[in-house]
């Protein structure tokens, strides 16, 4: 899933860098506040760790081998923000030193794997693990599914990025300049591989390592288990970390959801105006009004005609073509899809937080009543 140079257009790469920067900034701020100077060695060693475990080829059911990226595992141990940074550092070393993933596509790779991957893994893990004790088997399943979901969502993001290339970037003869397959080919092609082999490797490693840690060193699982029954001190850290950046997430998700809707809403009103409508005075009025004209209904038809004729000019050239555009359709679906994923993630996180808060108060009440928790 490491996108090499040359698969994405430079403008896509720029957009992906721009998308990743706010998250890097937030993550750095969050982690810095938590760990102060401990941050430097911790991130270094963890980035090295996530690099090294990518070399572990493990046998999968069915006779093939695969390697994990470790998104699920790093997130479960470090929490989403530190995991974002650690995986980004590992990806940079892979891109620069080992030629795995491109330099120009580094922003996209980080966005898919380090950022989206970590956040999805965190959401899935928290939701499924709930308040289960650290050594409960539910945490193993939660970690396994978190890894599986994270790698697949990351692959989906990469597929969307690939799929948008041939729509936007073609040479004079119509040959795609970058990744050549549209969304309806890119998405299944990427997902089939990841839903099976790569996802399975991630699933086995994430689940297996959490199971191992439960036997040997359960304290490593504490960071992302604030509500667990056997963790006494609730960690405000991950909670407040989430709260600080929530506006960012809401903003991004809403923007992605709304911008296509806004375009559609404006466009559909415009597109409905058939040329015949312009011979109908009532329709003309409606057009004039929709176009921001405040002319009263009683106005003389000539005036309306004049006004509407101003507005007919741009329409046949602009609106219908604009709406029928294949590019726009692709962009809308991609943006809408990404927005939906982000929104779903927001909702899940909010539910988790509400449930956790409620449980914590319940527990507090119970503890006060019984004198022991």
């Amino acid at each position, binding site marked *: 899933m490491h996108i090499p*140079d040359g698969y994405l257009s430079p403008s896509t790469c720029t957009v992906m860098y721009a998308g990743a920067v706010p998250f890097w900034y937030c993550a750095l701020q969050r982690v810095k506040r938590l760990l102060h100077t401990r941050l430097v060695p911790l991130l270094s*060693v963890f980035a090295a760790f996530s690099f090294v475990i990518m070399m572990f080829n493990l046998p999968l059911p069915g006779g093939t081998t695969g390697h994990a990226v470790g998104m699920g595992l790093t997130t479960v141990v470090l929490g989403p923000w530190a995991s974002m940074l650690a995986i980004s550092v590992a990806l940079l070393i892979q891109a620069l030193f080992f030629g795995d993933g491109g330099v120009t596509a580094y922003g996209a790779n980080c966005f898919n794997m380090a950022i989206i991957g970590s956040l999805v893994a965190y959401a899935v893990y928290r939701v499924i693990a709930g308040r289960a004790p650290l050594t409960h088997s539910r945490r193993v399943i939660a970690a396994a599914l978190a890894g599986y979901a994270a790698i697949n969502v990351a692959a989906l993001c990469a597929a969307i990025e690939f799929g948008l290339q041939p729509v936007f970037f073609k040479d004079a003869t*119509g040959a*795609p300049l970058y990744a050549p397959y549209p969304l309806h080919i890119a998405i299944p092609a990427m997902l089939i591989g990841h839903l099976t082999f790569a996802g399975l490797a991630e699933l086995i490693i994430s689940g297996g390592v959490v199971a191992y840690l439960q036997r040997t060193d359960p304290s490593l699982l504490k960071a992302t288990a604030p509500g667990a029954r056997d963790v006494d001190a609730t960690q405000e850290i991950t909670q407040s970390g989430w709260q600080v950046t929530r506006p960012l997430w809401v903003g991004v998700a809403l923007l992605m959801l709304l911008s296509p809707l806004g375009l559609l809403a404006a466009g559909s009103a415009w597109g409905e105006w058939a040329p015949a409508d312009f011979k109908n005075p009532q329709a003309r009025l409606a057009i004039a009004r929709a176009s921001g004209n405040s002319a009263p209904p009683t106005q003389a038809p000539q005036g309306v005609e004049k006004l509407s004729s101003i507005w007919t000019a741009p329409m046949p050239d602009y609106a219908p073509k604009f709406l029928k555009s294949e590019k726009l359709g692709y962009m809308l679906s991609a943006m809408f899809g990404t927005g939906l994923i982000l929104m779903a993630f927001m909702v899940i996180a909010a539910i988790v937080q509400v449930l956790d808060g409620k449980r914590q108060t319940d527990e507090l009440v119970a503890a006060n009543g019984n004198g022991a928790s």
Partner: protein
Amino acid sequence: MAGGVAIKRKRRKSFVEHTLAGLAATTAHALQAEEITKADGLLQHLDPRVKVVGLLALIITAALAHSLWIILTLFVIALTLALLSQVSIRTLARREWIGVLVFTGCIALPAIFITPGHVIYRLPLLHWPITEQGVRSALYLITRVETAATFSVLLILCTPWTHVLKALRVLHVPVVFVVILGMTYRYIFLLLQTAHDMFESRQSRLIGKLEDREQRRLAAASVGVLLSKSLQLSNEVYLAMQSRGFQGEVYTLDEFMMQPRDWIALFSFLVVAGLGFWWGR
């Protein structure tokens, strides 16, 4: 690694052997790169900052170009730079080209048939159409990826990693990030060595073949052990840094000096990138 006079001719390598080979290969890969950085060639003598900026400009030009000829010209420039820097074609092919060609080739091949456009040939029997646009598209992808990969591998093969990192400061990468990158690189080798030792000791006590299920358990346990070791290591490193007076401030030595030849090189890189951009629009 299959047994000498093996009855089953192709025994599947066990997970342990497979991973051991991978770990050793990565270390060898890095060592070979270090050897080449010491060679007496053109790029090795240039200031790392010039190389980072210049080669990055060429990668971006290759990514921006809308003409196959420009991309191919850039590829030839990359080849010339490699030869002048004592990087053999064999090294480039082994390290980069073959892998990229196999991977990108697999991806680009179907595009020849399924990209709509002007049909130039039909496969006999199958009657699959080969379109001009499809061929162009596949060529774009392969040449672009090969060219960009060659430039970036040249940067690494001709510049010690520590210098690359310092040069990143020119691009305004935050200093904390650069320090983390540098330390990560060191710990990668330490952890590679640790993982290698773990698997070697396991392999030396292994008779027969482990079941797949058992291998997966072993893999997960190894990752777990490595994880605990990593955390322990990070704690120790932190204490060591603290005892040496580290308080979160990072200082780097900046001893690079631009020579006249560096300015000439920078100028040529940027001129080539600019011309490539102009002609390849």
